[in-house]
């Protein structure tokens, strides 16, 4: 009796008990499906974040307050507020290093903004006049505020397209006045729609001059973040070193170990994000794997019951010449086939769900890639076969050790 015949026989057996076979498989189907979804959706989410970050351009340098490890997250990610970085620092960098061609600091806050009776919850961002240049963002209507308006702490605002829609509907927002934190701002421009990108709706924010935001809205004198644009991606590393030297001098710091700021390039940022999302992904896969183990135990249980139920069949097979190894083979093939078919179904379902998630995300305007991770599929195949072997061997040996006389008498 060869393997192919055995597989063929078991296939028929599974086909005759479709409902039970399916229920037996269910644990594996769900387990493999979860692993595939986690890996595929995880890869999609990762692509989304990376797409968003890299869309800002590879020739951007970020300056953050507080020292942080190159690979780790910045201190601000843990909610620590560091006040050492000032707007002047950034202007100085722009002045000192000719490779920096544009720069802006950032401060942010949220408020319910009102125009007459219309209200909307939004984010106000204090930035320098260079922002459109740094972020490659264009103004749709009106204009962005000028350097003088920034320095003069003028109460002018440039609103995102979403804000324009929410507050003004079809009316022209230009020249209107809105209230942010009880301060009246006049609208001088509307940003072009930038699409929802990442976890932040880029269109639901209001840009105001940095100094205005610091003094009138937030009452602070520091900035939480800065971006500088380098003329050429090849100069990024040199400019980062240069920025470090200049800032150390300004902050009277002797050794880089004592820095109260950090300078990052987009590449480093991507690296850190990839590491964090990878870790998250593996954690989720580990959680999903628990479903596989539960499924495996379920199959072992059902196969043990099947051995019991088929005691007479096993006795008969032995009586007509089956060796113990034939019986082991038969039951093992059955278990592996159930888990393998379950694995294939799980892969197909997982891919379909991931595709659906990607389509929905794309439909919502996210730059979400549909990724079918080939390693995940191969892993799914091997793991499902492996689970069949591991959890099938006990019932199979159990079956082969039955005494044929006892087995034939079994009612």
């Amino acid at each position, binding site marked *: 009796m060869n393997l192919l015949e055995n597989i063929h026989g078991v296939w*028929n057996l599974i086909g005759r008990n479709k409902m039970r076979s399916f229920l037996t498989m269910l644990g594996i189907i769900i387990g493999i499906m979860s692993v595939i979804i986690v890996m595929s959706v995880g890869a999609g989410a990762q692509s989304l974040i990376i797409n968003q970050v890299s869309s800002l351009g590879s020739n951007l340098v970020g300056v953050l307050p507080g020292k942080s490890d190159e690979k780790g997250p910045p201190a601000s990610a843990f909610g620590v507020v560091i006040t050492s970085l000032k707007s002047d620092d950034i202007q100085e960098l722009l002045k000192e290093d000719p490779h920096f061609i544009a720069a802006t600091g950032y401060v942010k806050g949220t408020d319910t903004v009102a125009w007459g009776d219309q209200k909307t919850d939004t984010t106000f961002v204090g930035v320098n006049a260079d922002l459109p240049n740094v972020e490659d963002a264009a103004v749709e209507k009106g204009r962005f505020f000028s350097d003088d308006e920034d320095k003069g702490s003028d109460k002018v605002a440039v609103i995102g397209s979403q804000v324009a829609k929410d507050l003004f509907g079809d009316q022209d927002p230009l020249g209107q006045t809105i209230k942010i934190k009880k301060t009246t701002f006049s609208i001088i421009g509307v940003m072009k729609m930038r699409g929802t990108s990442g976890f932040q709706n880029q269109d639901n924010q209001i840009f105001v001059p940095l100094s205005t935001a610091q003094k009138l809205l937030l009452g602070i004198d520091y900035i939480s973040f800065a971006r500088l644009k380098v003329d050429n991606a090849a100069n990024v590393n040199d400019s980062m070193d240069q920025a470090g030297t200049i800032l150390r001098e300004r902050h009277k710091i002797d050794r880089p170990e004592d820095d109260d700021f950090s300078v990052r390039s987009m590449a480093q940022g991507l690296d850190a994000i990839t590491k964090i999302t990878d870790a998250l992904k593996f954690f989720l896969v580990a959680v999903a794997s628990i479903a596989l183990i539960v499924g495996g135990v379920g199959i072992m249980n059902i196969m043990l019951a099947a051995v019991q139920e088929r005691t007479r069949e096993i006795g*008969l097979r032995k009586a007509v010449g089956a060796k113990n190894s034939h019986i082991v083979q038969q039951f093992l093939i059955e278990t592996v086939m159930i888990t393998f078919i379950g694995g294939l179904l799980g892969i197909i379902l997982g891919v379909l769900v991931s595709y659906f998630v990607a389509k929905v995300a794309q439909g919502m305007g996210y730059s979400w890639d549909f990724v079918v991770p080939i390693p995940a599929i191969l892993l799914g195949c091997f793991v499902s076969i492996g689970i069949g072997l591991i959890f099938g061997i006990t019932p199979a040996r159990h079956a082969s050790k039955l005494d044929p006389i006892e087995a034939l008498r079994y009612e």
Partner: protein
Amino acid sequence: MPPIIELQNVSKEYHNEDVVTPVLHNLNFKIEKGEFVAIMGPSGSGKSTLMHILGFLDKITSGKYFFEGRDVSTLEDDELAQMRGNSIGFVFQAFHLLPRTTILENVMLPLIYTNVPEKERIKRATEALDSVGLSHRLQFSPGQLSGGEKQRAAIARALVNNPSVIFADEPTGNLDSKSGLQVMKILQKLNLEGHTIILVTHEKYTADHAKRILRVSDGEIISDEQVKVRLIAKDAEDLVK
């Protein structure tokens, strides 16, 4: 030519923890090729154990068992399995056909374990079913067959490997008298064609269809004689070729 079966001082006892239960004592007999022997005795007499030993399903405790001249008392499990597949055919009281499996596949089962190629398997199983008058039932499942038909299918399965001996353990026990007669008629026909048949039964009436009766009681052979007035099953011959 050596006898098909020869037992020399065969004893069997079961050990259950420290309790020893003797089942068979000092059996000595021979069965030659072409015989039709009934092993007869009341339940608990040891006749079933004797059949299991003769059919390599159980091992003896002491003595010698020669099958076609070969000492089988020392064989390993796998060798015994092979012997069962090649030299023995079993017919059981409870039929033991695999459910949800066609009659043809059921009959092909012993051939699978003796590595007969698939085409040959189908051919031989079809022939075997033909010889028990079931050629019109090849694709039926056991659930669709009457008791008599099931037992005839089981006989076809016992026959398909062209075994040296066919063991029939109470083959008519679960059948009405008419179907029982058909089964006995087939067994007699097979014997006529040269098959050696060993029938295990507790009924004198059934045993009288054989040519020779071994009476077993309390694990011993109490008589071994030829059947004087042999019954020949004649009924329903149109069902059997």
